[in-house]
């Protein structure tokens, strides 16, 4: 076998092996999207009920609470960025990071100091490589987050918000994650979690529902005290679940195009290999023919 043909054959083998891997990853990601979507759906009743309750307290009482009132001059803001632990998901992590960068720029432009909290190894690596400061980070659960993970991430954030700004606390809490719109569309979004803006909760709540005057047990302040941390946790949990679904969808898409590309590559490589084989055969034939006629010429010459 000719040297060129051998090289083509080897490349075809290696691309075929890669294609098998990407195909397997595509299928795994596709099956996980469905699971992640189910989890998002399962967590929705809790989130909607909680939002209802928060809206009810916030509108139904005149209580002032650090988590609902806006600071006069907000000086520090916290950003929670959700990225993935693993790569091979196309632009998933970098898009989320870019959204966080934009938000950071905007907040800096408004004269606020920004502290960053990161979930996911990719985000940690990005900030680590650029030697930017991360306040806190969590990794290892972005594939299938549980409520306990959300709770773990929420605890220091809530603590930072309740602290006085002068003592290292923050005035605002933003979250950046990738919203799962459909199998094909996932958008990185940023939203402000705290202080609570009533307009956004009302929008989520559904239009024009009049909330009854609630009786609070034990008191409006205590209810709000207990309710708001849960609200933050639930929002983070929901964001984590959506981000997980988006990650799997992004990975599925990336792996699908990788598989398609590998297929194309195999096709063009086998064309080249065929041409090389054919050229080899042609050469052999012409060599044989040439050799035979040379022999014939030689014997014809000796006859004389």
């Amino acid at each position, binding site marked *: 076998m000719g040297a060129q043909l051998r090289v083509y054959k080897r490349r075809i083998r290696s691309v075929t092996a890669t294609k098998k891997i990407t195909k397997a990853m595509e299928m795994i990601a596709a099956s996980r999207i469905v699971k992640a979507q189910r989890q998002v759906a399962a967590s929705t009743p809790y989130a909607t009920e909680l939002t209802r309750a928060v809206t*009810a*307290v916030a509108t139904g009482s005149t209580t002032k609470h650090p988590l609902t009132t806006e600071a006069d001059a907000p000086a520090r803001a916290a950003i929670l960025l959700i990225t993935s632990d693993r790569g091979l998901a196309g632009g998933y992590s970098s898009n989320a990071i870019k959204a966080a960068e934009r938000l950071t720029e905007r907040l800096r432009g408004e004269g606020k100091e920004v502290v960053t909290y990161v979930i996911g190894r990719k985000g940690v690596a990005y900030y680590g490589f650029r030697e930017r400061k991360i306040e806190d980070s969590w990794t290892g659960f972005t594939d299938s987050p549980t409520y306990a993970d959300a709770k773990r991430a929420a605890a220091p954030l809530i603590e930072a918000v309740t602290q006085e700004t002068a003592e290292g606390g923050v005035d605002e809490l933003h979250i950046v994650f990738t919203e799962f719109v459909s199998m094909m569309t996932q958008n990185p979004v940023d939203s402000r979690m705290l202080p609570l803006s009533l307009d956004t909760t009302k929008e989520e709540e559904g239009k024009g529902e009049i909330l009854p005057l*609630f009786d609070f*047990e034990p008191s409006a302040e*205590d*209810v709000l005290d207990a*309710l708001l941390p*849960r609200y933050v*946790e*639930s929002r983070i949990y929901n964001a984590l679940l959506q981000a997980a679904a988006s990650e799997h969808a992004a990975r599925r898409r990336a792996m699908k195009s990788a598989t398609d590309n590998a297929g194309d590559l195999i096709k063009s490589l086998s064309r080249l290999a065929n041409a090389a084989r054919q050229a080899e055969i042609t050469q052999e034939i012409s060599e044989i023919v040439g050799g035979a006629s040379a022999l014939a010429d030689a014997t014809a010459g000796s006859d004389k």
Partner: protein
Amino acid sequence: MAAELHVELVAADRSVWSGEATLVVARTTSGDIGVMPGHQPLLGVLESGPVTIRTSEGTTVVAAVHGGFLSFADDKLSLLAEIAELADEIDVQRAERALERAKSDTDSAAERRADVRIRAVAVR
């Protein structure tokens, strides 16, 4: 027709139980509270403990609730808890083992959780 209230018992990651009931007894931070149809709108903080739901079919559903909220309006009652389990789902032996372990490890949170589970089963 007897008045009924619609109950939704939801945990953070799933909906645990929903249906019609005539009476719901839960423990808030300021004491036990019973909610019947027509109760005034209420929003309360729940203590860890068993919640008893008397369904309109006359059966009783007991659930272990680990902290959370209760909100009632328009004859609709929502019980929100980070973790909630029906008494039927609880494995008593496992809960007892967890209680033993929590006691020896002096893990007060785990001890409380196991205790709530066992109490919920006892009420049933």
